[in-house]
């Protein structure tokens, strides 16, 4: 059996803000098609890690390779073009645009134009299809509403749809489930599983451990910017370092 190719390789990544080491010497590999969960207490450097991988901040040291290509320090818009899409923890739609127009923007991106090879057809129709895929009711008024008028549950799904529109190879979801009800999460999980089935590699930052552990292949734990544990959901759950990080310790 040959092991799947490494799609993302992060080596000794470091980033400090002032005197705070937000991410310190984090290394990990991501195989093609894998779903990696990243967990850790608040302020453990999870979102900083996402920002580093997607180019929103530049690392102080260390390297990031995507499909063998060194992308360390690249600007976000170039990284997207290679195939890494992300969501934001706090949803960031274009609030003044209708929901479906939010998807037309990524459909115009250089990446999608290249993948489509010139012929794209009706972008509005593609956008409406995508919205239906993430659970917007077909032909309902909701797809035409401006984003500022949508409830949180829809905005989260819109956030996911925006990434899907980019047809990424690697999808980074920053706390997609936060602020959602159990029922809403249950509605989104099948979409993520479908994306995986289609071969997408996914990194999920999550606080909702129960839901995450059900779908993750592997889990990495961060605390104070350092990787303290890594492995299958079961082993991570049992590790002393994790219990200590989450529950605190007397010593």
């Amino acid at each position, binding site marked *: 059996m040959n092991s799947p190719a490494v799609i993302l390789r992060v080596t000794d990544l470091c980033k400090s803000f002032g005197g705070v080491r937000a991410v310190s010497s984090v290394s990990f590999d991501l195989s093609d098609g894998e779903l990696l969960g990243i967990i850790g207490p608040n302020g453990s450097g999870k979102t900083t890690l996402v920002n580093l991988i997607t180019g929103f901040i530049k690392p102080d040291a260390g390297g990031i390779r995507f499909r063998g290509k060194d992308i360390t320090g690249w600007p976000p*818009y170039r990284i997207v073009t290679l195939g890494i899409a992300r969501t934001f923890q706090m949803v960031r*739609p274009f609030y003044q645009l209708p929901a479906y127009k939010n998807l037309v*923007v990524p459909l115009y991106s250089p990446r999608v134009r290249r993948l489509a090879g010139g012929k794209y057809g009706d972008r509005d129709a593609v956008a409406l299809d995508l919205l239906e895929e993430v659970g917007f009711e077909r032909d309902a008024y909701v797809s035409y509403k401006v984003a500022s008028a949508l409830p949180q549950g829809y905005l989260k799904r819109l956030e996911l749809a925006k990434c899907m529109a980019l047809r990424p190879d690697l999808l980074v979801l920053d706390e997609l489930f936060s602020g959602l009800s159990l029922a809403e999460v249950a509605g989104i999980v099948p979409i993520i599983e479908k994306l995986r089935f289609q071969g997408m590699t996914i990194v999920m930052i999550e606080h909702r451990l129960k839901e995450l552990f059900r779908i993750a292949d592997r889990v990495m734990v961060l605390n104070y910017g350092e990787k303290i544990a890594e492995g299958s959901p079961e082993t991570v759950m049992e590790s002393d370092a994790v219990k200590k990080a989450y529950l605190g310790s007397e010593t």
Partner: protein
Amino acid sequence: MLLGTLIYGFVNSTILALVAMGFNLTFGISGVANFAYGATYIFSGFLVWILLNSLGVPYFFSVVIAVICAALLGFLIYYVVILRVKGLALSEVMATFGLGLAIMELFRYFDFVGFRYTLPVFFDGSISIGDVYIDYQRLAIALIAMALTLFIYLFTHHTRIGLAFRAIAQDERTALTFGINSDRIGALSMAFGSALAAVAAIVILPLGTIAVEGGYDVLINALAVCIVGGLGSTMGILVASVMIGFAQTFTANYLEPHWMMLVSLIAIAVVLVVKPSGLFSHQKELEERI
């Protein structure tokens, strides 16, 4: 008297809208207040004059070259000056204002002063509406201002670049995750705004002479319209232009012509006290500002 005031008030409003359009477009998209705007306006006027009178280039080509040069100037200012201080609002203002000063005062230094610096009108002559005479140039200004407003609306709502403009304006970070190069779009918005300044200059300057002082007036008027209307809001620009435009004309006709310039300044002062975000823009919540 009243009919005349109304007609000239309307024309004055369209002049203000034309002048504010480019400034507002650049700010609305990239968040950069381009204080070199008045200088770009004057630069374009003198450039057309030089091309026409010193180099003998035909009018049509002079105009096209001037608009392109203004756009290039804006593009360059963005990449060479603004990009270095991007995000530091005060530095942006000082850098662009300083550059504008330098450009305008250079024209004065090289003796571009006097009544011979005028641009040709499009058509000579005038018509009468009732007993009010109005020249073709002023009609052309009104028509071109309205056409440009429509053009900008269509451009931003029905083209790829236009959609990228609106995306960047609403959320730069999200736009970045969609592969939009925000610096390039910012530079394009500067180029677009500067080209609009050139168009305004070419259309409006035939009414008088090209003078360095005109650059300062244009900047103040553009600022007044944008502040009253709410920066970045197209609807705000139109409403504010009409309000200030009529107020100026009524002031000139019924009070004193030289009080006209005070109207803009008073409008700025009043709006900043009563509704600092302008009529059609929202004051950001404290949370958003942080």
